[in-house]
């Protein structure tokens, strides 16, 4: 009762509100933030011009784009570019090659950093682990031109492998120009370049696993392999799924520079992938519209795969990408 009688009394006195920050008007806030906004402005402009304007540039996929007419005066052709692109047997061949290479990399490259990370994580000596890490991270910083040059010396016609084969009495074999071996060649190069680098994210996840879980498992009598299976792997499953989904999203863009540099070694029939097809057909042959159309198809399929895989991950009770990404 006493509380209710007191309330009207209070209302009469000048409201003793807590000294919360006064809400600033837009003008005042702009004045306060003007230096910060000016600093961020060039960056904003950069992203708008070089990332968002090209997105709009994709309208040429629906035009008979002619460079001398530009975006505004080229004739609109509806979906003709898409039907043209799909009617080109080279497109289907490039799609097939892309999927083959992506599959090879998914099966052979994707697990490699996980295995190496598990191995490194089990090394007790800090010194040895640091040393191995500093060696295997290095190739990530070497550009593709250099890597292909180095492989040319190792596996190319006059390189190490053919000479070794000859020395032991086998026929010379040039892997760099063997169309059938192209997906394997690309995968070997990718493993060499990025297997070490790929371990970073898994090592971080492994470090985050609670050590008490291992101790509890050991007390319960779990051996080395059971601990690996029941503690370590579940600990890094979310990150494996995350990376797998991201990988699926980019399944139609297999190493562009890497393939561009080596496509002519094996010929277009097995060396052409979607990205190189877009490049040669579009920029070199001036088939702007159809190439941009394929670019759009690629992006749409990639996004659909990404979202689909994410949905499946959610269905099985995993975090997938976006729930985990904004932590």
């Amino acid at each position, binding site marked *: 009762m006493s509380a209710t009688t007191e309330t009207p009394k209070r209302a009469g006195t000048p409201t003793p509100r807590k000294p919360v920050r006064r809400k600033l008007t837009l003008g005042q806030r702009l004045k306060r933030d003007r230096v910060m906004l000016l600093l961020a402005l060039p960056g*904003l402009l950069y992203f708008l011009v070089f990332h968002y304007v090209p997105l709009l*540039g994709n309208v040429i996929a629906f035009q008979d784009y002619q460079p001398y007419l530009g975006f505004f005066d080229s004739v609109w052709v509806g979906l003709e570019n898409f039907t043209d692109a799909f009617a080109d047997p080279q497109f289907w061949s490039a799609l097939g090659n892309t999927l083959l290479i992506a599959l090879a990399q998914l099966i052979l490259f994707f697990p490699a950093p996980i295995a190496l990370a598990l191995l490194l994580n089990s090394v007790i000596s800090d010194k040895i682990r640091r040393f191995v890490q500093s060696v295997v991270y290095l190739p990530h910083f070497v550009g593709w031109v250099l890597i292909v040059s180095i492989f040319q010396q190792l596996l190319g016609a006059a390189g190490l492998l053919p000479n070794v084969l000859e020395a032991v009495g086998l026929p010379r074999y040039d892997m760099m120009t063997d169309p059938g071996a192209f997906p394997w060649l690309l995968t070997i190069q990718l493993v060499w370049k990025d297997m070490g680098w790929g371990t970073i994210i898994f090592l971080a996840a492994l470090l985050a696993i609670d050590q008490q879980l291992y101790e509890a498992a050991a007390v319960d009598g779990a051996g080395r392999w059971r601990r690996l299976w029941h503690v370590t792997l579940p600990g890094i499953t979310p990150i494996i799924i995350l990376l797998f989904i991201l990988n699926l999203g980019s399944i139609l863009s297999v190493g562009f520079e890497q393939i*561009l540099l080596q496509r002519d070694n094996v010929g277009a029939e097995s060396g052409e992938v979607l990205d190189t097809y877009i490049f040669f057909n579009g920029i070199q042959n001036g088939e702007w519209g159809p190439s941009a159309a394929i670019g759009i198809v690629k*992006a749409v399929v990639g996004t659909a795969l990404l979202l689909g895989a994410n949905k499946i991950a959610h269905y099985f009770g995993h975090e997938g990408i976006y729930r985990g990404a904004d932590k």
Partner: protein
Amino acid sequence: MERPTWHGLTLKGIVLTVIVIAVAYPFVAVVATSLSTDKEIIANGGLVLWPTEPTLDAYRVIFAGGQVTHALVNSLGVAVVGTAASLVATVMMAYGLSRRGLTGGRFILMVALLSMLFNAGTIPNFLLVKELGLMGTFAALVLPGLISAFNFIVLRSFFTSIPRELIDSATVDGAGDLRVLFKIVLPLSKAPIAVVSLFYAVGYWNSFFNAMLYLDDRDMYTLPLILRQLVLMGQPLAKGEAFLGETPPPQQAIQMAVVVIALVPILLVYPFLQRFFTKGVLTGAIKG
């Protein structure tokens, strides 16, 4: 827990040794070949592991002022100017957006982050560079990739993690936003700024596709373009770069010498970069 078994340790040791050798061997072999004579290269079947009579002839040829020297200067120029431009732009944007509750800050941040999800594709990007009149300029190698969203996130998350009290104490003393940037934020951020600059520098140094697309004047060629011509397309060096001594160095030694030249800057900055990864400085940012 139980002690590791001896055969487990041996197996681990063997696997790690094989991996380390497989990664390191090509680097060693490339350097060794570049120092070798013709005879030795033939005797060793392409790649030499340890040159018995090392010679710098290959380097003398490529440093004689021909196209490789030229390309080296171009590449260094692009890397230095590009890194400086990228760093300034990224620091400005990251610092600008590091204030919580910045008017319009969320919008600008979303613009930057969403750009990572969508890639416009090769054709529209090419047409944009063309429309902007950047064809055949070094700017075409720098501007399209001026700010990497990833590096921006790394720097911004570091800037926002600087304790507010530090910044507030300076503001109370009358320091403006720019003074805070130069007197407090930048001195505290040396490590992440170093990492980001090295990332940019390595990126510019390795940049191949943009150089191939946008440069057509041979005098402007960068090292990756020359490498492709010399090693992958097997073109010999242009005339007038012949060796003045008795026997010219072998083609393979010259090729590998160019590879070494292109590798050296990466090998030089790598120890600095590497320190940060093994310490795990960046992993927080990667996960965040």
